[in-house]
C-alpha cells in the first residue's frame, strides 16, 4: 500500500529529516556468496565477499581461495576458476531451463551448498513507459510487457541499466500469486525520479525460482523504501538458499533483455 504511505508523508507538513550518528554494533565479517547461472552463454560468475561494519566505506573485501563446484541434474559438473580476487567463473557449463543446479563452495573448513532450479523462459514483449505518482511527484516508470504462463507459479526479477549503469536503489520482483496467466503490464516502481526522457534504458528480465524470489522480496522489505513511514517493523536478514549461514543467494534463472530510449507517448 505504498500510495497510503505517500499520503502519510504529505500529512507530515512539519516533518523533517536529518542524518544522525548512531552507535551501531559490529557483528564482524560474514561471508556473502552471490552465484548465478543463466540460459545465456557462460561463463557464469560466483562472487564471494565479506560484510563490513555499518560505519565503514562501501568496499567489501573479496574472499579468495575458495574451491567452487557447480553441477546439474544431467551429470554435468564444472569447477570454477578464480578470474580475479573473489570472482569465480565457470569453464564449460551451459545453463538450461528446467535443470536443477547445485553449487558447493569450500572455504577453509566451511562448506556452503545451495541448489536452484532454472524456470522456463518467458518472452519479454516490450518495454513501455508510464507517468505515475502523486502530489506533483511525476516519476517516469518503465513497464515490462509480457504474458505470464498460466497454471504454473512464476517469479520475476528485473534489473534496470540506465545509460549503461545498474540502478542499485531499487529491487523489482513480481510473482504471479494474484496474476496467474495474465498479461503483465506492471510498473517497475523506482523510489526516486530515476528515469528521464531521452535516457537509454536496458531492462533485464530474469525468471527465478521461488526461494530466490523470497530472498529478494524479503531483502526489499527489510530495506524499506526510505521515508518516515516506510520502515519494516522488525527488519531481518532474508532467508538465503545457501546453507551454513552464508549471506547472499544462488540463482539459476533465464535471461531476457529489452533496450529502449525513455519516452512518454
Amino acid at each position, binding site marked *: 500500500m505504498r500510495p497510503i504511505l505517500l499520503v502519510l508523508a504529505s500529512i507530515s507538513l512539519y*516533518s523533517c529529516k536529518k542524518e544522525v550518528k548512531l552507535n551501531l554494533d559490529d557483528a564482524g565479517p560474514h561471508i556473502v556468496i552471490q552465484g548465478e547461472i543463466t540460459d545465456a552463454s557462460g561463463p557464469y560468475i560466483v562472487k564471494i565477499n565479506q560484510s563490513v561494519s555499518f560505519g565503514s566505506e562501501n568496499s567489501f573485501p573479496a574472499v579468495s581461495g575458495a574451491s567452487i563446484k557447480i553441477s546439474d541434474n544431467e551429470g554435468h559438473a564444472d569447477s570454477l576458476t578464480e578470474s580475479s580476487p573473489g570472482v569465480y567463473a565457470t569453464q564449460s557449463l551451459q545453463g538450461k531451463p528446467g535443470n536443477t543446479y547445485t553449487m558447493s563452495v569450500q572455504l577453509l573448513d566451511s562448506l556452503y551448498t545451495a541448489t536452484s532450479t532454472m524456470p522456463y523462459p518467458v518472452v519479454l514483449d516490450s518495454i513501455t513507459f508510464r507517468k505515475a505518482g502523486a502530489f506533483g511527484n511525476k516519476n517516469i516508470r518503465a513497464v515490462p510487457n509480457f504474458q505470464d504462463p498460466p497454471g504454473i507459479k512464476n517469479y520475476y526479477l528485473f534489473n534496470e541499466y540506465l545509460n549503461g549503469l545498474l540502478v542499485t536503489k531499487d529491487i523489482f520482483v513480481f510473482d504471479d500469486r494474484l496474476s496467474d496467466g495474465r498479461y503483465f503490464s506492471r510498473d517497475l516502481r523506482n523510489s526516486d525520479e530515476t528515469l528521464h526522457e531521452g535516457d537509454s534504458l536496458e531492462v533485464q528480465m530474469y525468471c527465478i525460482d521461488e526461494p530466490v524470489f523470497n530472498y529478494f522480496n524479503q531483502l526489499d522489505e527489510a530495506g524499506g523504501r526510505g521515508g518516515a513511514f516506510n520502515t519494516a517493523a522488525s527488519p531481518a536478514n532474508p532467508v538465503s538458499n545457501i546453507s551454513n549461514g552464508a549471506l547472499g543467494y544462488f540463482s539459476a534463472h533465464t535471461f531476457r533483455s529489452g533496450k529502449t530510449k525513455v519516452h512518454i507517448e
Partner: protein
Amino acid sequence: MLLATIFAYLVPDNFFLTEALAILVPPNKIFLSMQPKRFVFFLYIWLLPVMASAQGRHVVSGTIRDRQSGETLIGASVMLMEIPYAAVVSNSYGFYSISAFPGRYTLVVSFSGYTSDSIAVDLAKDTSISITLDAGSRQLQEAIVTAGRNNNVTKPLMGVQKLSISEIKDLPVLFGEKDILKTLQLLPGVQSAGDGNSGFFVRGGNTDQNLILLDEATVYNPSHLLGFFSTFNSDAIKDVTLYKGATPAEYGGRLSSVLDVKMNDGNNKEFHASGGIGLISSRLNIEGPIEKDKSSFIVSARRTYADVFLKLSKDTSTNQNSLYFYDINAKANIRVGAKDHIYFSGYFGKDNLGFGNTFGIDYGNVTGTLRWNHIFNSRLFSNTSLIYSKYNYDIRINSGNNNIGITSYIKDLHFKEDMQYYANASNKVNFGIDVIQHTTSPGVISASETSSFNPLHLQDKHALESSAYFSHDLSLSRRLNINYGLRATAFTIMGPGDFYAYDKAGNAVDTFTYASGKVVKSYFNLEPRFSASYKLTAGSSIKVAYTRTTQNLHLLSNSTSANPTDVWIPSSNNVRPELADQVSAGYYRNFHDNQYELSSELYYRDLKNQIDYKNGAQLIANENVESQVVFGKGRAYGWELFFKKKYGKFNGWVSYTLSRTERQFSEINNGSYFPANQDRTHNLSIVGIYKAGKKWTLSADFTYYSGNAVTWPTGKYEVNGQIAFLYSQRNTYRMPAYHRLDVGATLQGKKTKKFDSNWNFSIYNLYGRENPYSITFEQDPDNPSRTRALQYALFRWVPSVTYNFKF
C-alpha cells in the same frame, strides 16, 4: 456459600458451556435455541441466597440526571448518609438502587463536576426517587458529602481510568482536535503508538488487544487519517472508561484492555446547537427533546478539510487529490412509562484518500445499537441490546491497463442481555449473555480484462462468539469489599469454507471442506475475574486483582504505522485463542477532602498464543495467510503511579509508569525473550490546568518516554549491486527518548443565556524537539561510498486555533 453454589453448577455439568453450545448452532436460530427455562432455573438457584439476604429491607431506586439537559449521569455516587460504607454507583443508564432496613435516612448523591445533593428519605416501603444534579462544582461544604467521592478507594475495581469530557476540553492537542484517545495516553499504563498517533498500547498489549466500544458496539478501526485522529468526536461523548486488564466479567474478547465509550443521549428539555471551527476540521452538534422530558435526540458531525487546501493548488496532480474524513454520531431515546427506556444510537465514519483518478481508498466504521432498558422491579435492572458493527475498506486503482478494486470488511451482529440485581447495600450481582456473529471478508479483488491481476474472492469467514457471565459485588465487612465473577466464552468457527493444514514450511498439506452451518472447530474458555479492596483508613485502601482474558479475533499488521488495510482474522484450526492472565496489586489514597488522589499499582501479565510474522510474510489477499504467522508467548510487568488534583483553580495530574514488555518466539532470537516493539521503560506525563480568572484557562502537558525497542543493522554487504544491511538480533537497540511540551489557552467569550463561545489556542511541541518518528538506513546519495542513518521527525511547533460556540 454463593461461590460454592455457582461452581457446583458450573464445573460438573459444564452448565455454561452447554448453554453456550445450545446458543451456537445453527446461526439463524441463535435466539430461539437458548433453552430459556434452564437458564432461568439456573439463575434462580444461583440468586436464591442473594435474594434471601434482601429480606426485610426496602429499596430506594431511580435515575440520576443532569438538571439542565436531562442527560443521565453515569458513575454518580449514591449513599445513605447513615450507612456510608454501603455506597453504590449509578450504572451506564444512570440507574441506582440501594436498600436498607426501614427507617429515616438522608440520601446523598454526588458526581464529579456537579453540585452534590441530599434528600431525606423515609424508608417505609420500596421507594423510587429520581434525582437531578446541577452542573458546576461549587465548593463542597460538608466532609460527609465528599465521602461518596472516594469510590476509587473503596470499590474493589482496579486498573480503571475514567475521563470526563470536561477534563479533556482544555488540554492542548495536535491540530486543536480534542481527542479522548490522545488524552488517555497521558494516563499511567497507556502508551502512545507514535507521535501524534491515536493508537495506544495498554500494559504491554498490542493495539489490537484493546476492545474499543462505542455504545457497546465494537469499533474495529478507532482512527482516522491513518492514526492521527481518533474516530471519537468528543462532542458526542458522555463518558469514557478504560479498564487496564482487570476488566469486569461483563466485558470480554480482548486481552489487554477495554475502552468503553458512551455517547450523549441528547438534551430532553430544550434545543441546543454547538460546534467548533478549527484549522483542519469543523464540528456541529444539534440536540433537543422530541417530547419534553420523555425523549430526545442528538446528532454530532464533523469533517476535516485538509483537501480544500489541496484544491487551491494550481498543480493538477495535486488539486485532484482528496484527503478527508467525516463522521456522524446520532442517538435518540424515549422513555416508555416508568419502567422502560429505549435508545437507538449510531455512528458512521468515512475516510477518503485519493490521487486523481489513479488511486483511491475509502474506509470507515458503521455501528448501530438498539437498546431496551427494563426495570423489573426496584432491585432488578435489565438491558437488552441488538448491535451492528462493520468496518470496511474499498480501494480503487486505475493505472494504465490496471483497473482494480479491492474490498474487505468485518461485520458483527450482536445480541446482548445484561441484568443487574441489587440485593442489598452490600450485595450486587451482574449477569448476562451475549452472542456475536462475526463475518469477515478478508479480500475481494475485481480486475478488468486488461489488468495484470486476476479477480479473486478470498473466502468469507464465519464465527460465532457466545459468552455468559456473572459477577458479584460483595461487602464482607466495612473494610473488605470483593468482586468475583466468571465469564465463559465459546468461539465457534463455522462453515462454509475450506480450511487448511500447513507443514512447517507453510505449504498447505491438507484441505478440509465444511458446508454452511457446520461447526469447524470450537474453543471454550473460562475467564475467572477477581478483585478485592481492603480499606486501611477512611481515605486509603489496598487492592488485589486477578483476571484472565481471551481473544479470538487477531489483527494482522506488520507495518510500523496503523494501516487501514490491516485485516482481522478469527481464530481457526491453525490460530488458537490468545490468552492473558494478569495479577495486580495497588495502594490508593485520597486526601484533603478527596481533592487529591494517589494510586500506585503493580501488575504482571502472562500472555499465550501471541502472533508474529514470518520474514517476508504476505498478509495481503492471501488465502493461506495463516501459514504466514508464528506463535509465541509474552510477559509484561510494571509499576504505575498516578497523582491527581481533582478540584480547585489549579488541577491536573502526574502519571508515571515503569514497565517491561517482552515476547518469546522459537523462531526469533534463538527462542529467548526479547523486548516487544512497544517496550518503553519509563513513561511520564504531567498535566496542568489553571483557571486564571473568569476569562482565561491555561493548560500545559509534558510527556517523556524512553525509546521503543528497534532492530538496527550490525553490518552491511553488497547484493546485486545494492547495499544490504546485516541484522543480528531482534529489538536490541533503542530509539532516542521522546519528550515534548504542549501549551494551550482557552478564552471564554461573553456568556449569555442564549449564547456561549470560546477561543482555544494551542501549540503542540512548544520547544520544537525533533522527536524521531523513525530512523532508516540508506546509501548516501551524495557519497555512494558510505551509508547513513536518517531520522524522521514529524510535528514541531504545530499551532492551532479553534472557535467553539453553543446556543
